[in-house]
């Protein structure tokens, strides 16, 4: 069976006033408070805390090398080993994007291009990072392995326009990715 019925615990009249639970909670938070002030927070050492509590003093110290492989930073566009821009502007990421952060203007690959076999490429590809919620659905929806969630998280736009990443910026952030499937080969 997919679900399990759990019986609600019977609580006595004494417990129903929740006074003990309430006071117990107050004691726990007070304990944390006292331990923080005297600098003995739990797992402070393991987490590399500094000063009071377990906080890592962010701009000076960073967590970067502990970032897990599956960490979802800002989305980027990548180029393949052959230098081809992998995005073919199928607009599936635009469709799946729950925050509607992606806007793509599709266009044609010029006939004299080395990659005119692909026919289609984005003219403009914008991700509004003020809307992006870093869910990674674009990466999952992408049939061309073109959009990836990077490990980057340092984004500080100073105005709203700078918060919108255009195609050039996305490729600059993404760079080249190795070991992707080369679908648009001669035998496709």
């Amino acid at each position: 069976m997919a679900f399990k019925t759990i019986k609600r615990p019977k609580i006595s009249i004494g417990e129903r006033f929740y006074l003990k639970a309430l006071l117990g909670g107050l004691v726990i938070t007070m304990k944390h408070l006292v331990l923080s002030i005297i600098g003995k927070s739990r797992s402070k050492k393991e987490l590399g805390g500094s000063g009071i509590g377990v906080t890592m003093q962010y701009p000076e110290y960073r967590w970067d090398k502990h970032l897990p492989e599956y960490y979802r930073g800002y989305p980027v566009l990548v180029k393949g080993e052959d230098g081809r821009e992998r995005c073919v502007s199928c607009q599936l990421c635009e469709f799946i994007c729950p925050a509607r952060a992606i806007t793509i203007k599709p266009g044609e690959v010029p006939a004299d291009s080395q990659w005119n076999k692909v026919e289609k490429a984005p003219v403009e590809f914008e991700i509004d990072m003020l809307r992006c919620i870093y869910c990674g659905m674009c990466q999952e929806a992408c049939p061309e392995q073109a959009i990836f969630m990077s490990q980057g998280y340092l984004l500080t736009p100073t105005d709203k326009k700078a918060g919108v990443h255009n195609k050039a910026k996305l490729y600059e952030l993404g760079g080249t990715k190795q070991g992707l499937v080369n679908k648009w080969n001669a035998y496709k």
Partner: protein
Amino acid sequence: MIDSILSFCDSVLSNQYWFFIITLLIKLVICFAITIAFIPISVLIERRVASFIQDRVGPNRVGIPATIFKRFGMKADLPFVKALDYFGLPHDGRIANICRYFRLDKDIPLLGLLQPAVDGGKLFLKQDFTPPFVRRFYFWVAPMLVLAPPLMTAAVIPFAGDLETPYGNINMVVANLSIGPLWIFAISSLSVYGLVLAGWSSNSKFPLIGGIRSSAQMISYEISMGLSIIPLLMIYSELNLSNIVQYQADNGWLLLPFWGEGLTVERWVLLIPIVISFIIFLTSVFAETNRTPFDMSECETDLVGGYHTEYSSMKFAQFFMGEYAAMIVGSSLVITLFLGGWSIGFGIDGWLLDNCGNWISTILQLIFYVLKLAAFAFFFVWVRWTVPRFRYDQVMKLGWLVFFELAVINIFITAAILYFIK
């Protein structure tokens, strides 16, 4: 010259009208200074205590000189040296040395005490955005209606004992009304208009729900709040808050009757209804101020930001300040009614008056009052970061089915006790 000034002051103060006006102004300044100054302080307490409870540091980055050199890079990058380079100054020149003398080469964090000031500045500088399609007049009026009532109610709360001066007796309360608690209830219930108007005028669904929730909740808890202090008023037989505090200073705080008349058996019997009243009143104050276990009206998980979702900049800050001002006034009311207001307690008030003089005792009482207030602000924060938020139906059930009945029964219990012991 000095003599003439002194004699002028003397003649002015001897006139009872001028004396009244001048003392009133001084009292006003003290009263509002306490209330207003406590808003940023309680914000700081809030943030600091919350972070300690969660094993964090909390606000600690703001320091003198307000991290102005931060724009030149991080601490490790020697921002001061970079700043000097930027202006083309020698590293050990006169200006550099002057800066070093004033410790401008490094930040002095000051435990993050500057944070509230900088926060306030930030709020002033933020874009004041009025969304389209709001009902503009009410949208603008609503924050004022939230902030004004708590500040008005502070007027009747005594913040120190009487001060005897050669020109007359100064009562340390802005408005020595003989209907103190009633005034507070009357005025503080007005702030619900601000919340409802904010919710309605924002022309958005979440603020509307938040506004409606808060009005229902505040009106519900006002009832149990009002009923819960009736036993106290029966015990005090008094509605003047100054007299109530004076009574507690002489005869023991209501919750801690350890001196004066408080040592009698009757007072200890009366503690039963008083404790019930205290619990109801305290909880209702939490509900009235929309603080966390009861912050249904701005519950982020289901209402984004509640009634102030559409507000920004100082208009938002006014809601924010209104909440803290209400919290401070609520605490001061609890202190005044149950915990002896300004009195230092244990009979020390009388001893101080006799041995150290009137001025010293009044100032000590003022300090003690402020300390009590700070302790209570801490208590508010402590509860906020301990107790999870109620569900809305639980809030209403608690208000109407538990506290209301309990408060009514409590009145009868008190009446019965008083009938037998007096």
